[in-house]
């Protein structure tokens, strides 16, 4: 029984007519046409479907659509803007962190969730924040290097100016 779902998607209010039991990943991909969010395992074990729900990284394959009523969702399509890459995206390219690319949207969003609140994470903090994202191609080292690089780029560009974030959870 479809219902109207209203939420903020990548900064813009949207409405979608969906089955309340549909998973958010399917709503994003099939109903709203945003296929940047990937589906890997459908059981919360790979992170390919990661989106930000009110700023926190979550597995959209396990979020019933009804749960996001009134919430703010950021997908990979909302990172960076036309013609201008987000520092995290630039860092992933610079560090060679993309091979097949399937995990990349989820990795970038997990990194964004971390760097939005912690401007200078250590290696263990990066690993903890990215612990829900699997990659079958790269061996993770270059992804980790990209997050370190992105943190530096974001600090240089003043991305945290006025945000009040202190690096504490």
């Amino acid at each position: 029984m479809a219902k109207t779902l209203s939420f903020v998607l990548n900064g813009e209010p949207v409405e979608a007519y969906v089955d309340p039991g549909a998973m958010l990943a399917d709503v994003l991909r099939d109903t709203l046409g945003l296929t940047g969010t990937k589906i890997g395992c459908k059981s919360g074990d790979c992170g390919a479907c990661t989106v930000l729900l009110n700023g926190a990284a979550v597995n959209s394959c396990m979020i019933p659509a009804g749960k996001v009523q009134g919430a703010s969702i950021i997908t990979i399509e909302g990172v960076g803007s036309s013609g201008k890459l987000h520092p995290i995206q630039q860092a992933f390219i610079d560090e060679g962190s993309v091979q097949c690319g399937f995990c990349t949207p989820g990795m970038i969003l997990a990194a964004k969730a971390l760097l939005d609140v912690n401007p200078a994470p250590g290696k263990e903090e990066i690993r903890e924040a990215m612990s829900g994202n699997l990659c079958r191609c790269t061996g993770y080292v270059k992804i980790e290097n990209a997050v370190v690089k992105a943190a530096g780029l974001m600090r240089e560009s003043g991305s945290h100016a006025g945000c009040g974030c202190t690096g504490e959870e």
Partner: protein
Amino acid sequence: MLHEYIFASSIDAALALLAQGKGKNRIIAGGTDLVLQKEWAGKETEVLVDLSKISNLSEIHEENGWLSIGANVTHNQAAFSPLIREKARALADACSKVGGKQVRNIATLAGNVVTALPAADAAVALTALGALCRIRDSSGASRDLPMTEMYRGVAQSAIDSRTQILTHIRIPVCGAGCGSSYMRMEQRKALSLPMLCVAVRIKLEGGAIQEAGIAMAPVGPAPKRAGEAEAFLIGKKAERAVFQEAAALACSQASFRSSAVRGSKEFRHAVLPVFIVRGLEEATQRAAATA
């Protein structure tokens, strides 16, 4: 067939919604276990009642000697809570191991308990810490059930999410001279169910053990308290030889099954005493630091 997804404005409102459903409505917390279960997959559930917008269920606070954790508190919140890290470190460490970051951001401790899996990390730590679960039902009744009575079988909770709500988890605050520890054997550092886990709580006074709690899993349908080992420890000196004897007693109460994925019973039986000794030593160090 799921018809509706409703955010309850209060616990009473949630209970009223459950009562209206006559068994077809159920509570959803983070949902990370629920969405993988068949009960909700369209046939048996018509309405999901979400508690996440009830604000006072997201609190962690200390009151009258109890640490109170609301039903909406996520594993991530618990893992990083200064209060839980100080007063119930085993729980913070256990919560930090559940799933991956994305799961921990939305999955709740209450949900972990109600899903009732044999080695649910938070449930194991809560068992050793002597936690009580506050349960409300639509009659208005409220009761506290100890963790040791929260499991009816494998994946069978004492709570029926169609008629009852676990509103708070309460842990007795131990104070000075107390420490706890969580040990986990795992195939990966994240996204991995435990092969073996042990939670330990200890209270010391003058170098002697006053109180002890040891929970181990998966050794049956539920996390199990090593009652004989706990009783043995009382009054003894907190030292390795004593811990080793306690570990041997605990092992005699543990029954493992062999799993091709999660380890043979022989291997897990060999590791269990090592974890208990290490856990007791770590808890002792932490207890000594607070004395």
